[in-house]
């Protein structure tokens, strides 16, 4: 996934899960202050992110999340981490 694709996916999750207005969501939007999410929403968000990355959320990284961009960074890092650690078996580069 490119960064733009990840951003769109994250925005999609925010709109679907929390019924946010797409116009309100910007990369620099603060989740708790600007978008009015709370600690319960955060659990739902982590469940969604877990399904995107298929990896355990790193607690240290999770605690740093403040903005939409922070989520995008987390997903990007997790996905890259997965790719580096375990390339898919059918990846043509492997053969």
């Amino acid at each position, binding site marked *: 996934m490119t960064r733009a694709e990840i951003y769109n996916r994250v925005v999609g999750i925010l709109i679907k899960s929390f019924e946010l207005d797409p116009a309100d969501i910007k990369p620099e939007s603060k989740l708790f202050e600007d978008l009015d999410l709370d*600690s*319960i929403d*955060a*659990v739902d968000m*982590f469940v969604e992110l877990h399904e995107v990355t298929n990896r*355990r959320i790193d607690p240290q990284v*999770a605690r740093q999340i403040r903005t939409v961009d922070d989520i995008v960074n987390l997903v990007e890092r997790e996905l890259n981490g997965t790719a580096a650690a375990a390339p898919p078996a059918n990846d043509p580069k492997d053969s």
Partner: protein
Amino acid sequence: MDPTHTVDIAILGGGLAGNLLARQLRRTLPGLSVALYERSQDTSWKVGESTVELASNYLTRRLGLSTYLYENMLPKNGLRFFFDTPQKDAALVDMSEIGSMSFTAYPSFQLDRARFEADLLRMNAEAGVDVHIGAKCHDLVLHEPDSAPSPHALHEFSVTENDVTTRVRARWLIDASGRASLIAKQKDLRIPTPEHGISAAWGRFIKHADMDDWGPPAWRQRVRNTSRVLSTVHFCYPGYWIWFIPLGRGVMSVGWVGDKSIFRDDMRKPDGFNNFLREHRAVWDLLKERAELLDVLAYKQLAYATKQFFSGGDRWFLSGEAAAFTDPFYSPGSDFISIENDFITDMIARDHAGESRAAIAERSATYDEFMQFRFQATLLLYKNLYPTLASYELLKLKWEFDIACYYNLWCAPYFHDEHLDLQSLRGELRRKDFVIQGLENFSALFQRLEAGFRRQGLLHRRNLGHATHSISTIGFLDDLRTPRTRRQVLRTTEAIFNATRTAALDLLADLGETPVPGERTLPLYEFMLATPLA
């Protein structure tokens, strides 16, 4: 060739799981024929006498047994815990106690399984279930359409009764045969759980002392003269507990459950069992030489898991101990039966109504995943936590956490049949890894506290003279009468988690340990990440 007999639904096993399911199927699907096969001639005495709130809701609401239970069984007065000295020499009235001063808001019962199952067999026969007693089932052939020559074939097995063998064919087959586990053995479903090595030995006594007519008036007044006898009474020790459960008509079930390393083979025999009990003053004071031990039984390894609970698409199902077992502490066995029987009845009803095999198979997989989740979460209540039983303070903390989570996460959804709503179930299953992580985090916290208390010799420090009668974490009980939103459930979870963690932080401070991080209140997601809670 053996004579053949064809039935819509065959239930292997006439114990609690099989009988309750037979009753449920007759009530829900009166157009389908149900046959039940029980191997034993006499309804033998079985362990598993206590029901908790979820199973009681199933028995009363779903199965219409409220009047029967109040007329024939004992109402249960919740759980009660007593704590002892390291020398096990405290008198009952000196022991610290956890247990309510009144019956709880949601009913539960103490069951005399032998009487209950005999009555259920009779009631089922009267309701049109084809009941076979002393019927040994064997030579089972499961029909699995994907690998069978004819998609319309039926499951088949032989039944031998009074030396006559009949071949039975059934569209739906339920294994409720307990630890005999006919289907699980044939399909190699059983998974050992060596990580939870717990044994049990138990017996029935008569002529024991009456705990409600015991000790000075002030001791009985301490619980406002509520009946302690009607509680499931636990005497708690490091690594094990001893139960007292009244079965009515003068009979008391007394059992030991504990770490396999403490189990002694002679506990399988009356003398050995009595000798073990005699080592505990308060327990023995209630029994002494005057009480008569009627019988004794034991299992060295109680817990086991299963690879699969149901195959709705292939029309076979497991219920009760034919599938899996965790631990008798908190009596979850009949809760598992309740949920399993609901799932089985639902799948058969949908199948009978013409729902596609693919849709039922998909539903079956979701139900199965939920049972696995429930099993995993239940085992986390116990695994590595038996040492905390030593301490009034630690068990009080753990008990308040466990009971609150039980009401919030398991009972309430059941009360409103959310477990039969696929969408709701899938939502819950999406969060399961986080819930399990949260429960693991608390398990680790309790273990850390126990280790700290043990190191400093504090496990027994409050085991005498203290009492807790109300539970601070369950202030939400009245909210459970109507369905709650997911946010309400999670908000309650957050409150329970914070209350428990705060109390744990205070205990850690007592130990002189510095908690990290130091915040007193955490947002819910913090509890569900792979990071220590203190």
